[in-house]
């Protein structure tokens, strides 16, 4: 009797030992890889501390970031502070940001881009090999754009509208992150110095700065209204000339025109309205379009959602831009017609990032499709001496694809012509004319653009904005689209437009006007 029960007991005990063995197989074999790559795994931390990290090069193979291992600690050097916001930093003490964060697993070699080799490395327990990155950015243009901004707070973003390749991404003020890497003990002082500096150097204004856009938003308003059929390029509003003087009463609130200075009010259609940047005209356009369609088109252009430079897996997040109040990670409905009419000329609750504005300009240049921005061009085997440039062994190349259609190609053409007029037209050249690339030593090229002077309230100097692209005479030619903001820079024509024109001209000189 007892013997029988003992025999039954032994079966249960066997089952219990079998389950413990099963759990062992799970942790030691099946789940071992997942455990080995967790960020809080001490081995991952130790690896980060002592192993070499891949280098980063500009599009021409100039070294921007590289690491050496001394005394068992991997130290990283950044050659150009103008790239700091984009590259970010890889610090043992403060973690990683920017490209360093998004591409961390590849730079350290923790992940091999080739899944087969990745598996083989696992099986053979090979030491991870770092990989190098090449950016889409030419250091010469990046440095030129930074020099144009000078000591001013602001940002310059330039994109190739045909591909989405980021050509420049500058945020001012910047800082040198070299001191953040290396010995965690000394990193603290370097970090504190930047954290204590004025004007928040840590903020990447190009993708995290939120600004009122002012008149550059009229490009979105015009694009949306034309595509929706709410207006044509010939549409006029009968009351507009009178309202330029007396004000436009919406729901009892009077919308007033900005100072038109040398221009006398007249009955304008789209092109002259964009040239003088008439708030009254675009308030009418916004109301014709209506709140629902306005929000719909804003979303098509990328507003009201978080975007990324690069892919979802390895991308730099771009803060969402808003046309109305923020709600649940998107845009709230417009409160009333006053807010809608004001948003149509870029005031009220509109809040945008320079990157989104560059994408908006690039969309007009790219036949109405929003390019998918990317900044890492390819991935290569690690170069032993990074100062001598990258290796020729490209493991992976990346691109931005065709982009997402926001408006029809025909409408994009209409807006493009209006934006050329805004720079070169008889009235326009008084404003956005300052962004004309021919003023900066490039000939035979037309420029499309729009200035913005974003009012910030009493006592504060407006933000100075410019968006544009060139060459603009034929959409297929456009090889660069820019967005420039100078914080508190006053009028768009005075400050941002010349920077935008100079940056575009510099690029055309570097690559040739044919693109």
């Amino acid at each position, binding site marked *: 009797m007892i013997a*029988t029960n003992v025999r039954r007991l032994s079966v249960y*005990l066997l089952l*219990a030992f079998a389950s413990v063995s099963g759990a062992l197989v799970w*942790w030691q074999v099946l789940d071992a890889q997942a455990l080995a790559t967790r960020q809080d795994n001490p*081995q991952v931390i130790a690896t980060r501390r002592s192993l070499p990290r891949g280098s980063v090069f500009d599009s021409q193979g100039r070294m921007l970031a590289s690491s050496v291992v001394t005394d068992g600690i991997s130290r990283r050097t950044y050659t150009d502070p103008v790239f700091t916001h984009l590259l970010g930093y890889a610090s043992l003490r403060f973690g990683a940001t920017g490209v360093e964060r998004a591409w961390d697993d590849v730079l350290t070699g923790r992940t091999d881009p080739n899944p087969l080799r990745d598996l083989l490395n696992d099986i053979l327990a090979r030491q991870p090999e770092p990989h190098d990155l090449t950016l889409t950015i030419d250091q010469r243009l990046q440095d030129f754009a930074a020099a144009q901004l000078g000591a001013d707070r602001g940002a310059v973003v330039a994109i190739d509208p045909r591909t989405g390749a980021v050509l420049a991404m500058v945020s001012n003020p910047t800082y040198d992150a070299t001191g953040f890497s290396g010995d965690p003990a000394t990193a603290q002082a370097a970090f504190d110095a930047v954290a204590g500096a004025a004007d928040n150097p840590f903020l990447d204004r190009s993708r995290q700065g939120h600004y009122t856009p002012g008149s550059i938003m009229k490009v979105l308003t015009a694009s949306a209204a034309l595509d929706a059929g709410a207006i044509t390029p010939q549409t006029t509003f009968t009351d507009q000339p009178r309202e330029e003087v007396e004000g436009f009463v919406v729901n009892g609130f009077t919308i007033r025109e900005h100072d038109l200075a040398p221009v006398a009010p007249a009955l304008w259609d789209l092109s002259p309205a964009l040239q003088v940047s008439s708030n009254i005209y675009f308030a009418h356009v916004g109301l014709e379009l209506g709140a629902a369609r306005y929000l719909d088109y804003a979303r098509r252009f990328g507003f009201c959602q978080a975007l990324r430079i690069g892919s979802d897996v390895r991308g730099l997040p771009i803060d969402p831009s808003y046309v109305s109040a923020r709600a649940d990670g998107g845009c709230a409905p417009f409160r009333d017609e006053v807010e809608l009419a004001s948003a149509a000329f870029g005031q009220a609750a509109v809040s945008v990032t320079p990157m989104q504005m560059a994408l908006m300009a690039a969309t007009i240049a790219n036949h109405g499709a929003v390019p998918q921005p990317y900044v890492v061009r390819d991935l290569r085997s690690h170069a032993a001496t990074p100062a001598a440039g990258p290796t020729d062994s490209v493991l992976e190349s990346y691109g931005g694809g065709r982009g997402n259609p926001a408006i029809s190609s025909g409408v994009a053409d209409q807006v493009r012509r209006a934006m050329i007029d805004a720079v070169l037209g008889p009235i326009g050249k008084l404003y956005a004319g300052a962004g004309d690339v021919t003023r900066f030593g490039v000939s035979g090229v037309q420029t499309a653009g729009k200035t913005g002077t974003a009012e910030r309230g009493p006592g504060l100097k407006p933000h100075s904005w410019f968006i544009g692209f060139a060459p603009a005479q034929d959409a297929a030619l456009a090889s660069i689209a820019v967005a420039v903001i100078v914080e508190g820079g006053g009028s768009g024509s005075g400050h941002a437009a010349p920077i935008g024109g100079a940056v575009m001209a510099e690029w055309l000189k570097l690559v040739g006007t044919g693109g």
Partner: protein
Amino acid sequence: MHAVPRPLELRLLLPLVILVPLGFAVTHIAQTSTLDPGPMAVAIGYVGLMLGAHLALRLVGNRGDELLLPCVATMGGIGIVMLNRLPQELLGTDAFGVRFGMATTQLLWFGVGVSAMVLLAGRFRDDGVLRHYKYTWALAGTLLLVITFLFGREVNGARLWIFLGPIGFQPGEAIKVVLVIFIAGYLAEKRTLLAGASARIGPFSVPPLPYLLPMIAIFVIVMLVVVVSRDLGTALLFMGIFLTMLFVATGRRSYVLLGILLFIAGSFVAYNLFGHVRIRVDNWIDPFVDPSDRGYQTVQALYAFGRGGLFGEGLGQGLPTISGHLPIPALPTDFIFAAVAEELGLIGAFALLALVMCLVFRGLRTAMLARDDFSAMLAVGLTVSLGLQTLIIAAGNVKLVPLTGITFPFVSYGGSSLLACFVIVGLLLAISHRSVVDAQIEGRGQ
């Protein structure tokens, strides 16, 4: 009493003569990156002790199971190699003005344990002392437990220690043996009554309560003291031993089922009542919620298993220190299994579990061959206490059950635990010896 040969035991012990010193040398070489095999005194002492135990068993004329000692000695060998490879100042004893390192202390306790084992295996020929005075044993044990709870010293949040001069021990380990003796004595006496009669409550057939009451009363007292002193692992172990023995005595799964249901209900109450239980359980459900604080040990143990993989990092080459400290603070005691699994891999962990299973199945075989109910029940209880203890701590290490602070028999660092385990093996050898001798007498009679 005259000497007997134990040839199988000797043959199975002989590999240790090479393997244990080799383990010491390998770990020392791996850690110092020299060809110096390092100090061998502990290794030689250990091998000598186990061979000495074999000789002593022959001298005292024990004819019991020859597989028990080799299993134990191999497990202990793996343990002492691991303990010797860890920083020696981690644990240890200051006694008589001398500082004993962790491995040395463990070796001394091995000596004490082996002596107790040989003594029991050789001298313990009449179990009447245990059977007849079972209540006395139980009361003495319970008293010891209460004294510990009232006057003991608190270590790591649980008051489980009594110190006699420099030497501390955990009476909980002794009570484990005493409880098994009591339950075995009680069930052997009342077995037929219990197996036959039963009442029914709903779908459950309930044990006839009046017969069980004295045993349940004592068991409940022991459990209460254990639970109040926050020794969760021991509580779980005692519950397991009790239910298993009840099952073996009566053959009724429903008793076990009822016990498990009661235990689940009790655990639920404890979860809501005690903060430390809640922490343990939450950690078990997802240790990665707080991997740097509350879930730290559990998470680090999982990393250790992961690093080990199929073949292990190699003796002496795993367990990377984190800023000078071991990755897992309770490594020598609660997490020795994880350490073995890291350095010897899945294969080594399986080998260790196989040794325990071998020990357990030889113990159960001893029970099946035992000549009387008490011996059988005693062998079952003792064997199961070793088996369940291993299962509870190993399952806790691999996150199958919430982690509780009990030792891995013969492998973990800890004197009281080692002594209790050797007492158990000594009693098993004695029981096994009697059945072998009885069988021989019977055989001669036929």
